[in-house]
């Protein structure tokens, strides 16, 4: 390769798009490092505090796409206070100052303000794509800036964000000259939508492939939208509140038949179940179906819908489907790769839910299954052992038994053997979440067998530090470890400080780690940020005489090349 001029090498590198591979390439030699850095187009930063924008720009001056992740994963479950951090503003400011030719920005769990969106919309003439997942801090005014100023916008994808809806006219801020939209997802907006502006926008967007509406779009508007955009591939129907006898419903049925490219369906927030049959004619084309917000759909209507979906690869559903419903999925959806079963009833002891039987049925019927998220009320080791045997190809296995510490409901034993079977059989397992009654033994298995494991979520599990030690010693590829309410303490935390340099982050909350343990760790590893998050105290811990032995409520540590962050709120203490 050294005999080729740089341009040729660069051209070869163009074919390497995975950031992991590009990172590896850059380590081969100085000349490859240099060529790679100037040609890297897409940068992925898994922790926005591991590096800062200035260093990013120094290394990769020519990138066009940036992915940033902010808060730790457990922030999704309200374990991280809102003001913790993860602000995108400094990044956008730096990129604007550096005159980066930014075209795409993807953010997850970050705080985004209207000011940030406005700055973004004005600073990058070629900006094409904005994807925000689980972000917060902005309103529809910020969206209006994006709509108004991004002349070449192709993608505006808002997934499960907390957006303050000012019920303004952000949709009408797209100029008439904007005809480039490919993706428009505003399903998470709560307020009313300017339907006229929406319909006109869709009508002048011939490239529109993905459209996800919010709950405020009524059925007749949906019908008209589908008629304007028969080329649609991915559709979120919003509330789908309808009356089967209405003219709108007839129009809708006609429109659906024309959408022969439709592959992905979601929404149905208020759906009247018997109106699902309108979609039956195109169900065999569907590869992705998300009914996880469709609380009103269950029973026979749901079953009938699924029976038409023979080519599903991805299914997100509520546990009201029941084991019987999962058996239908197992016998119909032979192409299924990813299944998520969410809990419908977050309150009660559970009317219909799913059990280990549903999981076993799916594992037996769906040979291509590689990713599962399964909320259930009960599980057995025997079932997990069968599942492991049926599906040795799991990449992601996340099981959440709703009641913490619940044992095998037949034998009353811990579920160590069941999860042990999973990690032993699934040699490609990259992500695992465990639940139920678990002892140190399960972690022994995980450390021993889960060689490819990158992310592990632990809650209410284990007996002693040995458990955590097994994982830290055994899982060589571990990147993200998150633990809550488990009896792991300083001994495990401090055993191998260098391990954390190979990991992105470690979260421990309501465990046994003490303040002095965390301080010792911070001393030994200056390249880590060890954050203590203590909403109750505001550094009272520091003044208290017993501080050393005091248990830390929440600790989040991560490797970083830029030291302590400057935007620390008062309740976070970086050691």
């Amino acid at each position, binding site marked *: 390769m050294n005999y080729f001029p740089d341009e040729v090498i660069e051209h070869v590198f163009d074919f390497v798009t995975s950031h992991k591979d590009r990172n590896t390439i850059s380590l081969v030699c100085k000349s490859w490092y240099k060529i790679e850095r100037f040609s890297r187009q897409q940068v992925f930063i898994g922790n926005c505090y591991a590096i800062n924008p200035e260093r990013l720009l120094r290394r990769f001056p020519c990138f066009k796409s940036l992915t940033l992740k902010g808060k730790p994963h*457990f922030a*999704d*479950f*309200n*374990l991280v*206070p809102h003001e913790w951090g993860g602000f995108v503003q400094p990044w956008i400011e730096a990129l604007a100052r550096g005159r980066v030719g930014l075209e795409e920005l993807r953010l997850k769990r970050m705080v985004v303000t209207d000011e940030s969106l406005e700055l973004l919309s004005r600073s990058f003439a070629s900006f094409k794509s904005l994807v925000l997942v*689980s972000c917060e801090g902005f309103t529809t005014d910020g969206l209006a800036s994006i709509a108004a100023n991004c002349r070449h916008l192709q993608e505006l994808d808002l997934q*499960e*964000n*907390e957006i303050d809806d000012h019920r303004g006219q952000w949709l009408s801020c797209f100029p008439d000259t904007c005809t480039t939209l490919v993706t428009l997802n505003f399903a*998470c907006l709560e307020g009313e939508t300017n339907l006229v502006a929406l319909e006109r926008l869709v009508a002048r967007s011939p490239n529109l492939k993905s459209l996800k509406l919010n709950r405020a779009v009524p059925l007749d508007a949906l019908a008209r939208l589908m008629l304007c955009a028969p080329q649609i591939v991915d559709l979120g129907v919003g509330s789908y509140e309808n009356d089967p006898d209405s003219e709108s419903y007839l129009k809708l049925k006609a429109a659906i038949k024309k959408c022969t490219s439709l592959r992905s369906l979601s929404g149905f*927030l208020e759906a009247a179940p018997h109106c699902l049959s309108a979609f039956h004619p195109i169900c065999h084309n569907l590869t992705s179906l998300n009914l*996880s*917000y469709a*609380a*009103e759909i269950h029973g026979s209507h749901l079953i009938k819908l699924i029976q038409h979906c023979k080519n599903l690869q991805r299914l997100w559903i509520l546990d009201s489907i029941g084991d019987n419903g999962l058996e239908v999925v197992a016998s119909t959806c032979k192409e299924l790769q990813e299944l998520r079963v*969410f*809990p*419908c*009833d*977050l*309150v*009660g*002891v559970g009317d219909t839910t799913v059990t280990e039987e549903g999981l076993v049925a799916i594992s037996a019927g769906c040979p291509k299954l590689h990713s599962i998220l399964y*909320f259930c009320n009960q599980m057995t080791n025997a079932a997990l052992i069968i599942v492991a045997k049926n599906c040795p190809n799991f990449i992601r296995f996340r099981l*959440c038994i*709703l*009641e*913490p*510490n619940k044992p095998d409901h037949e034998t009353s034993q811990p579920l160590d053997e069941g999860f042990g079977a999973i990690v032993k059989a699934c040699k490609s397992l990259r992500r695992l*979440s465990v639940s139920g009654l678990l002892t140190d033994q399960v972690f022994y298995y995980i450390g021993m067998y889960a060689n490819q494991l990158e992310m592990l*979520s632990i*809650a*209410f599990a284990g007996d002693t530090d040995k458990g955590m030690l097994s994982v830290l010693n055994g899982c060589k590829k571990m990147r993200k470890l998150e633990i*809550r*309410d488990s009896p792991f303490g300083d001994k495990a935390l401090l055993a191998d400080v260098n391990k954390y340099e190979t990991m992105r982050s470690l979260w421990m909350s*309501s465990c046994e780690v003490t303040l002095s343990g965390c301080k010792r760790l911070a001393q030994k590893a200056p390249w880590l940020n060890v954050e203590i998050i203590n*909403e*109750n*105290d505001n550094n009272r811990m520091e003044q208290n005489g017993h501080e050393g032995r005091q*248990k830390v*409520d929440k600790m989040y540590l991560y490797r970083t090349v830029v030291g302590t962050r400057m935007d620390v709120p008062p309740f976070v203490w970086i050691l």
Partner: protein
Amino acid sequence: MAYEKVNELNLKETELCLGLPGRKEEVKEEQDVSCVRSNNKRQFEETRDEEESKPPTKTQIVGWPPVRSYRKNNSVSYVKVSMDGAPYLRKIDLKTYKNYPELLKALENMFKFTIGEYCEREGYKGSGFVPTYEDKDGDWMLVGDVPWDMFSSSCKRLRIMKGSEASALDSSSL
């Protein structure tokens, strides 16, 4: 609003304060109200010390089940509402209310009655109607005692008691 670890006896340092339902922000100033650990229940106040060894129940664990707050906020959770003497039950979606005043107003409108004023020590005074609810553990509780979020995620059904049964819940017996 922060919740304490269920098993930790850290009585003074709580951030949870009792006060008028729905007025969380103002209540924070009144620091010295009786401390509440996240699994305190009105009738079990005297057993507080014993609770340290109890395993956490589903009702009161923060961040559990691990479902994104967006999804929790958008899930529909209808609970049945009964009123003593009313011929049939109603159903409401707790997610449509953000706090106790909104809920109580909606109940008043639904059943055409007035609820008295809530105070922590004595419950509802003035009207003879007492809103109660059944929580995840199957216990009947007075509406308004726990923070709204905790209530809305653990309430299984509502019952508006009235008349003599209601007055038995007044100051004397608690």
